[in-house]
């Protein structure tokens, strides 16, 4: 077998809000666009399309907006390659040469030559370990939402027992809203930040257009029937072979949980927990773009030019969460910006970019970014472990590395992510450090190394595990001249 060979002007990686907007903008500017996504259907997490008809999700605005965006892309001749795993990307060998993207899809190798690339790779959960976090039934808040949306006609999580939704941030409200739409109850809602109604109200009043959304989310939370614990965190998950009980503790004035006042919820079947997200930077780091660290943007993110979405690598643009967390609105607008500029660099017959229109897009983007910054301030992500860990708690679950292992490495001189990884194998496993990177940074931080000095696991070939045969087929693909 040989690899399938495709060519395009703009390859958009990711079919979420940013990727769909980038694809449409580029295609409407007469670029030949291919949009790839690892999931079976375009839409990403935000616009996730239901996998059964007639579920309560089918009529939600997120699904319908996604459907419209996908249809608009199709009408503009965007070619979607879904269910495709991007396992490698090569930058142009010469200034005029294309990028090469290598994909595996249905056990077949595909190679795309693209004049420009828009990275719209989104965000992933930023798991923080706590005692009991590896028990079955303990899942990320985002994973909980995805399970619910893709549970087909049953429209329920596959766990018996009470449901606890815990962590921090407005995303928890979005997950609660998904539960409400699915007609599913939540038993306990645990938010690390105190209620602080006055502070939140003041912040929201600076963005009055967002008030209806906020009110709707709070109403949905009420509909789930959840008992609310504000200013509290889950300090332990307990159970025999799976989660059965959850310990909840109030957070004291020093920011630490007060275990003296903890209480236990029994009969738990699912603990959905999330302390925030982080940009998915595999593609952009592999292609050599410059990245920076800002906790309020999710940690390490890909830097872009504010007026164009251009990264530090010529021909590579980035949009959405990979450029720093902000939510669906900035994602969509930054996608449009990046798509327009990516197309303009490779399509000769465009009339060129309209400066006034670009300025209007940038103004919109900044407005939405400002709102995201307000939320990030209200719900700061924890940079240290929210719950003190015991020495035998697992930090890297791929390789079963405990806090004690990592602390021993630090005591012997490991001062960065790479050194911890070499000596403990934390980050050498299947996830290649995506899941444990923030935890290793948190451990190093306790030893006095700030996260911006810890570094990150820059991606190397392959971005995702790939079979030897497919790798060889893709990498030996010969190109016939156009």
């Amino acid at each position, binding site marked *: 077998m040989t690899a399938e060979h495709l060519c395009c002007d703009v390859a958009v990686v990711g079919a979420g809000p940013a990727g769909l907007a980038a694809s449409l903008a580029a295609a409407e500017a007469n670029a030949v666009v291919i949009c790839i996504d690892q999931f079976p259907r375009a839409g990403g997490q935000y616009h996730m399309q239901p996998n059964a008809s007639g579920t309560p999700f089918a009529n939600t605005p997120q699904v319908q907006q996604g459907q419209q965006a996908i249809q608009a892309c199709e009408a503009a001749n965007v070619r979607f390659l879904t269910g495709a795993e991007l396992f490698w990307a*090569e930058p142009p060998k010469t200034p005029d040469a294309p990028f090469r993207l290598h994909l595996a899809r249905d056990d077949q190798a595909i190679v795309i030559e693209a004049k420009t690339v828009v990275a719209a790779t989104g965000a992933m959960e930023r798991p923080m370990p706590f005692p009991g976090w590896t028990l079955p039934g303990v899942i990320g808040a985002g994973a909980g939402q995805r399970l619910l949306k893709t549970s087909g006609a049953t429209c329920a999580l596959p766990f018996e027992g009470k449901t606890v939704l815990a962590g921090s941030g407005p995303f928890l409200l979005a997950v609660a809203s998904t539960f409400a739409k699915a007609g599913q109850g939540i038993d306990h809602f645990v938010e690390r930040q105190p209620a602080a109604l006055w502070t939140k109200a003041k912040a929201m009043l600076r963005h009055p257009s967002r008030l209806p959304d906020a009110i709707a989310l709070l109403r949905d939370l009420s509909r789930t029937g959840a008992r609310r614990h504000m200013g509290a965190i889950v300090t332990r998950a307990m159970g025999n072979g799976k989660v059965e009980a959850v310990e909840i503790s109030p957070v004291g004035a020093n920011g630490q949980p007060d275990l003296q006042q903890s209480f236990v919820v029994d009969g738990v079947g699912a603990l959905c927990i999330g302390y925030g997200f982080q940009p998915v930077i595999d593609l952009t780091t*592999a292609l*050599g773009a410059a990245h920076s660290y800002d906790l309020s943007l999710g940690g390490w993110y890909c830097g872009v030019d504010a007026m164009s979405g251009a990264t530090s690598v010529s021909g590579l643009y980035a949009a959405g969460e990979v450029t720093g967390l902000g939510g669906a609105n900035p994602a969509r607008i930054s996608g449009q910006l990046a798509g327009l500029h990516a197309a303009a660099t490779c399509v000769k017959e465009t009339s060129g970019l309209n400066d006034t229109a670009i300025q209007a897009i940038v103004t919109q983007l900044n407005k939405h970014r400002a709102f995201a910054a307000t939320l990030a301030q209200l719900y700061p992500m924890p940079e240290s472990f929210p719950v003190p860990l015991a020495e035998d708690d697992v930090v890297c679950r791929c390789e079963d590395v405990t806090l004690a292992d990592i602390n021993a*490495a630090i005591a*012997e*001189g*490991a*001062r*960065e992510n*790479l*050194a911890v990884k*070499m*000596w403990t*194998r934390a980050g*050498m496993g*299947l996830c*290649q450090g995506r899941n444990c990177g923030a935890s290793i940074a948190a451990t190093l931080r306790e030893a006095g190394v700030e996260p911006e000095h810890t570094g990150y696991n820059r991606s*190397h*070939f*392959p971005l995702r*595990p*790939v*079979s*030897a*045969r497919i*790798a*060889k087929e893709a*990498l*030996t693909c010969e190109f016939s001249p156009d």
Partner: protein
Amino acid sequence: MTDLPTSSDVVVVGGGVIGMFIAFSLAEAGMKPLLLEARAFGGAVTGGSLAAIGTHMHGREEFDILAYARGRWRAFSDASQDRIEYNACGKMGFILNDAELAAGKSLVAQEKSQGARSELLTPEQARLHEPLLKGPILAATFDPDTATVNPFLAVRALMKAARKAGAQLRENTPVARVLSDAGLVTGVQTASGHCISAPHVVLACGPWTAKLAANFDINLSIVPRQAQCLASIRQPLGTLHKVISSCEAEGGVDSGYTQIQQCPSGQILFNTVTAPIPTPEGAEDRVGEVPPGFVADSVETLLKLFPALKSLPILRSWVRFEGVTPDARFLAGPLPTAGLFVCAGDNGSGFCRAPLLAQFIADGITGAGTLPDAMRRDTERLYNPFRFSEGHTA
């Protein structure tokens, strides 16, 4: 770094397996060495090593030296309660054509005459050791005494032992230049401007060693060469048993080589290099990516020998830079500036020589006679930094 001392008995520049073993040997000999590593300990050529230790396929001249070094590794492993994953797995050289067969036969005869337990295996015999080796081999060389260690843990254990013996080790401390006065080494200056006085300095900075020596108009024949490797997702232990290597008929590494092995984590590590890859600009500061042709060649060789691994999922790749010399041997010994020593030029196989070279350098500095006279003389001759005519231009 504010906690750097202002003076030291001896400064070792470079915290890979070579520098760390030297610091350890010096400290064991009673000195108080200070080791300065530009980035992370064991993070570059050492961390990317497959760390095979033994005599097989290294030629007649270095045989005794490598046998000594293997003994030292085994002793070090015992002393560190095997936290370095010392694994005496044996090494097999696969033979695909008549030229390689002739080379393999003479290799085995030579090693046997020097006391090795090497043998030439038929394909059937080879498969008794390595059941999945179903590829079209004509024969295989085999040495049961080759071992591997975990390169990361080996450096970590060396660090621990060196510190315990009195060495000071500092990472993220690049050395900008070596200081001298009237033909005598006086110390080093770090990139941040800190000066450390020392009567002895050892350059053990792998592929980048020549840069520091160039300040003295000493032209060391070491150039960086890119090398790379692929690693699979963990496979059941016992999928592979031996270090599998190509049996090179001629030309050594430059004409291509293959190494395949399963490490104790279960991951299968493999690489096939058919031609040298030029070192890209700025390689010292930013490690690049494996070339596509390398992945294709490595997969092709792997699947030719082990067809059952065709769906093996590749998890990771890495690139490193080896220090290459014209005759593929280290440069080790004193340099014309009194007090300055070099120990670099791994040519991709520093682990199997590290204990010997470290003892040789430590003896040279302390004046002790730890090594047998004959071995010391052989080491002086084989690794003489100025064995190439253009060596010293001062």
